[in-house]
């Protein structure tokens, strides 16, 4: 017992200091009108929260988070899945493709942001050049409030599809060949094998990949900050960007803390419900019975 305590202590101290303590401080600060100097004194109750939900920018943040999640689920993840299935086939240069598609994930978000700022530079970017060649006009998609969110989604997808693809690929390779062969022997076509054997057995992987994608979107910051700063006119702003603007630009630390609490609660509630209802079968035995199931 004491050995456990000794080994646990450093990690526990760090966890308490760097994770639990900031959450507690933020939740405390979130009920004050506080500019961050000295100690918070002006307790305003839940006013910061009602203000957030009445603010068109913050409500917009929620809507944009929902849109980005929906786009990810409908476009990004299926594309990643499709590519994973393709790269599971025997084709020449398979390793090279896998490496190539995974490469964007290795770049940091800031590097990706700077890269795409250059690609979509309105005057001399690669995107503008390509668009001109196609007879279209695409150079300013980051400067147009109507297109900026989709441009952002494009960059996010470019960066993360490789990651999801590798997850699916690993999941696919864990499916025993006998099962697909048996189905094929029973007369199932390619689509039927995929639909009734591969897809159900990929379930746990897909569920985890959706989970990571949703949580990542709720907390999206770096890439937006570098690419657009949340603009033009808030049309690509996310909750984390709004929080930064209020905390570090306007010195309204109380209000910024309230926004961070909303983000935290959204992530927590989503994680709890998702684990309870969606991931239950996948984690059974590992979490639900404390890992001591006979």
């Amino acid at each position, binding site marked *: 017992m004491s050995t456990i305590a000794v080994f646990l202590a450093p990690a526990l*101290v*760090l966890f308490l200091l760097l994770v639990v303590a900031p959450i507690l401080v933020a939740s405390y600060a979130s009920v004050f009108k506080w500019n961050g100097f000295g100690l918070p004194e002006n307790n305003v109750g839940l006013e910061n929260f009602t203000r957030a939900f009445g603010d068109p920018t913050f409500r917009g943040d929620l809507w944009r988070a929902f849109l980005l999640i929906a786009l990810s689920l409908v476009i990004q993840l299926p594309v990643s899945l499709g590519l994973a299935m393709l790269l599971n086939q025997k084709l020449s240069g398979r390793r090279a493709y896998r490496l190539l598609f995974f490469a964007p994930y290795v770049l940091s978000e800031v590097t990706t942001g700077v890269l795409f700022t250059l690609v979509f530079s309105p005057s001399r970017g690669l995107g503008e050049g390509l668009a001109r060649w196609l007879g279209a006009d695409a150079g300013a998609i980051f400067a147009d409030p109507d297109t900026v969110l989709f441009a952002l989604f494009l960059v996010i997808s470019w960066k993360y599809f490789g990651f999801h693809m590798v997850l699916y690929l690993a999941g696919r390779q864990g499916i025993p060949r006998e099962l697909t062969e048996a189905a094929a022997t029973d007369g199932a076509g390619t689509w039927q094998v995929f639909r009734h054997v591969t897809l159900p057995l990929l379930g746990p992987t897909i569920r985890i990949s959706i989970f990571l994608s949703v949580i990542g979107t709720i907390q999206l910051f770096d890439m937006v900050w570098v690419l657009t700063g949340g603009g033009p*006119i808030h049309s690509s702003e996310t909750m984390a960007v709004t929080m930064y603007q209020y905390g570090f630009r306007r*010195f309204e*630390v109380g209000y910024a803390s309230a926004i961070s609490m909303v983000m935290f609660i959204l992530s927590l509630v989503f994680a709890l419900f998702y684990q309870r209802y969606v991931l239950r079968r996948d984690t059974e035995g590992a979490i639900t019975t404390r890992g001591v199931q006979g």
Partner: protein
Amino acid sequence: MTAHLSRRSLLGLAGAGAGALLLGACGDDKADDPNAPQTINWWHIQNTEPMLPVWAAMAKEYEAAHSNVKVTIQPLENEAFKAKLTTATQAGSPPDLFQSWGGGVLKQQVDAGLVKDLTDDVKPWIGNLLPASVQPFTIDGKIYGVPFDIGMVGFWYNKDLFAKAGVTAAPKTWTELLAAVGRIKAAGVVPIALAGKEKWPGHYYWAYLAMRIGGLGALQQAAKDHNFDTPDFVAAGQRLKELVDLKPFQKGFLGAGYGTPDGQAATMGNGGAAMELMGQWAPSVQASSSTSKKGLGDKLGFFPFPAVDGGKGSVAEAFGGGNGFTVGKNAPAATVDFLKALLEVGNQRKAAATGAVLPTVKEAVDAIKDPNNKTVAETLASATGFQLYLDQAYPPAVGQQVNDSVAELIAGSKTPEQIVKDITTVAKSQ
């Protein structure tokens, strides 16, 4: 093995952290005696050539003359400085000597008791400085900082492109400016470069228009009354909208940065637009962002923001700001003396000679070599009034709201009447 190592290094880190806390606690007791051994912790934002080595040399010189003083310099990039200072001040431990623009942010630091009142210390020599430069650092009659650089915002224009469009004289009124924009556009040239992504360059237009229409008093009164919902501010928005309606900005300006490879400064420096409304640093940033790294050279000209017909403000009133240093509450005694040394005529001359600083010490003004800098300094010297950038002058929340609101006006999503209401709402909540 790696796990073992990383755990050990984590423990080491925790230990070092605890040690640092202890050391920090020891360092807290103030050195009131200027002759006792002491270390001045100095944060500045001239983190590149040409000023970086100049500051370092001045600190070395001071250390050589005062063997008991050690100056630790922390050069930081502008945005990094703001983020780092925010955490330091919110933790109640500001650096000893640090960058400040004065105004509303400084006032917050003063209210929180984080910076020293320098009024008595600087009294013997503050008269050597241009009065307008000290104004942003003066709060309720007390001086909390000393500026080393002062400048103003005005129109920087490309003489060749103006000539190409047949615009021979610099516009003196807003109507003339709008006419010039029309002619330049008709000549197939982008009239104005603007960094829409960064918002602060846009606020210059609205602020200057409000100054020309309502006069300096209107801006100060608004700050006092927390009320921007006045006919003068609405009119400023309407005049700005006249300009925006001409679509004078470069393609994709809403997403353009200021100093980025295709931002506002680069567009100007590469000859891609005829003018920009910018501060005294414009020529040097145009040069460093341009493809040739040389900028426009002698093709670049400067004219003050034009008058507005029927406006109360004079064209001789300047809008701008500068850079200065404030002294943290725990600073050792020698800090003020070191600050005085930095502001000596000889040192100000050295700074002015780099072309990156417009000196605040009157006697050093003759050391300005660059002709564009000279024009700015002369215009400023003859200015009859001075207004600090609104996003610095007002409390941070109000300043940022001004930037946000003007950006919305320029993007066409809000009307002049709506934005003054939005700004007033924030001002009243402060």
